[in-house]
């Protein structure tokens, strides 16, 4: 019975959404219809666009994956990495779609995201489209993900207690088999939390020593002072999981330790317990005494 109710709810919502999107009105400004990307198509803008995408678009559009067609059914927001979308929309058309929405599932971001930021998002979207042609002569093609040429061997995590930093050290070999310190490799480090993984850094590059240091800040550890970390480099070419001790830990104070009015009976405030028991017992004692007096009266029944 539950299943069929859910089916019906699903059907109704889907039909409403389809109806909504059937009426979906994309508004394309004539001036922007054929416009090209108005920011440089480079590393920085793509990274900036990713940050904006993650915070404003990801909730509905989820992850971007390069596919042939959109693999998500309505009413879910489409996977923007699908080649059909990328090939049939110009940069300017995407800009207008972001700005004005479609009056249905896609809201308008005209004022919520600045124009420059919109272009940066488009740059990021385009980084998933291999056939993307950058028009502007001065625009640079997106640099390859890694400037390091060679193979990565391992990534190791450690804790720099002096500076309170998490340090990722890459090791690798160049084409000739010599040990090198991989420079400019993108590293992602996550801290394991109960429900998911908290990013410490995402795609930051190693320095000349093949090292990347991320300040830890005041991130809480477990009671023994440990945190569980996951790190990967160069799109998971190497990865590792480490449990690092970064502090002395702390003593977890059980919030149920004290006595409160809201606590269970065993933790009733002492003043209340004493008052209640004292008053009740005293009054009952007097009543018991009164009943005893009845008994005494009974005993005196012979004149």
């Amino acid at each position: 019975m539950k299943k069929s109710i859910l089916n019906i709810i699903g059907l109704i919502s889907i039909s409403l959404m389809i109806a909504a999107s059937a009426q979906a009105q994309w508004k394309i400004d004539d001036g922007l219809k054929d416009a090209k990307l108005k920011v440089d198509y480079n590393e920085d803008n793509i990274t900036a666009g990713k940050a904006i995408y993650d915070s404003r678009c990801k909730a509905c559009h989820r992850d971007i994956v390069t596919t042939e067609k959109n693999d998500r059914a309505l009413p879910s927001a489409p996977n923007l990495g699908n080649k059909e979308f990328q090939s049939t929309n110009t940069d300017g058309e995407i800009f207008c779609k972001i700005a004005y929405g479609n009056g249905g599932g896609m809201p308008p971001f005209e004022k919520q995201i600045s124009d420059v930021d919109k272009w940066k998002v488009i740059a990021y979207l385009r980084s998933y489209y291999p056939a993307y042609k950058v028009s502007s002569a001065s625009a640079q093609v997106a640099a390859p993900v890694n400037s390091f040429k060679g193979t990565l061997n391992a990534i190791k995590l450690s804790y720099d207690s002096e500076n309170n930093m998490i340090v990722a050290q890459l090791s690798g070999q160049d084409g000739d088999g010599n040990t090198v310190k991989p420079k400019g490799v993108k590293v992602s480090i996550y801290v394991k939390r109960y429900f998911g993984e908290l990013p410490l850094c995402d795609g930051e590059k190693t320095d000349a020593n093949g090292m990347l240091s991320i300040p830890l800040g005041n991130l809480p550890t477990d009671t023994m002072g440990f945190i569980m970390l996951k790190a990967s480099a160069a799109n998971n070419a190497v990865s590792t999981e480490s449990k690092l001790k970064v502090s002395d830990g702390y003593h977890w104070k059980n919030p149920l330790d004290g006595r409160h009015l809201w606590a269970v009976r065993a933790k009733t405030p002492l003043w209340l317990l004493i008052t209640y028991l004292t008053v009740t017992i005293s009054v009952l004692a007097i009543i018991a005494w009164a009943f005893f007096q009845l008994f005494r009266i009974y005993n005196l029944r012979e004149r």
Partner: protein
Amino acid sequence: MSQEITPEATSRRNFLKRFGITLGAASTVSGLGLLSACTNDDEMVSLLTTDGKTVQVPKSQMKIDLKKMEERGREGLPGKKFVMVIDLAKCRNARKCMAACQGAHHLKPEQHHINVLRMENDKRTGFYFQPKPCMHCDNPPCTKVCPVDATFKRQDGIVLIDNERCIGCRFCIAACPYSARVFNWSEPKYVEGDDDRVYDIELNVPQKKGTITKCLFSADRLRIGKLPYCVSACENGVYWFGDANEDAVTNGTSKETTRLSTLLEENAGYTLMPELGTKPSVYYLPPKDRLFKYNYDAETDDWMKLHDKEAEAKS
């Protein structure tokens, strides 16, 4: 069909204990309890022991221990402090959260553990949608007044209900300023299998007539590291849920994890009716920069009418 006391059997027992299951006495003493175990059509259940071996146990010898469920339910998860953050800028009244919750907890359409309210502070301020679960207050007015400890706060901050103990006096409903609690006024909704189900205090299923029910932050899911039903069901990224002691919350839609402190600071998070002193564990992010034009239609959006239609359509 005798059961030996082997190291395997012991570890199996310990393994099962963690899940509140104890094997019937028959399994620990060879030869006893044969009658119940030796029926030809006795269903065998496969279990994994802690050392990775698979064993077959007759289903009749497994009892989900009500007492153990209650004990661990009352104890809660040590070291944690669960909080929820609700981003009002993202809520567009899809109410998938309400539907998922009612399904999981065997609730009737008018019973809400989480209710999405259409709020309008002032005629000039326009309206927004505000999901309202139980606040799991740190100074809970409801646990203060319960005469039998049927509702209580556990060490991970969750306020739970024990429907084996509740006497149905409804003082907690009167005490809660957020109207977070509902009552089973008549026989609860029957879901297939409810007859045989052992009462799970962390899920509050099966529901019982004459007792209270409310949002439990899906304590049964939290125990196995999963996000609550409502958080997972939302498609618009409204809910963040996590452990305040780790300073991390995870979004139910995008599964992104972020620092709780950052999220609240950057968005000026707040709680409902803080002046009442209840110290809620649910934070709200203001409905700023709302992206959606709310065409709220009282007719088509009416929750009860929608559910009446379903019932009609079914019958």
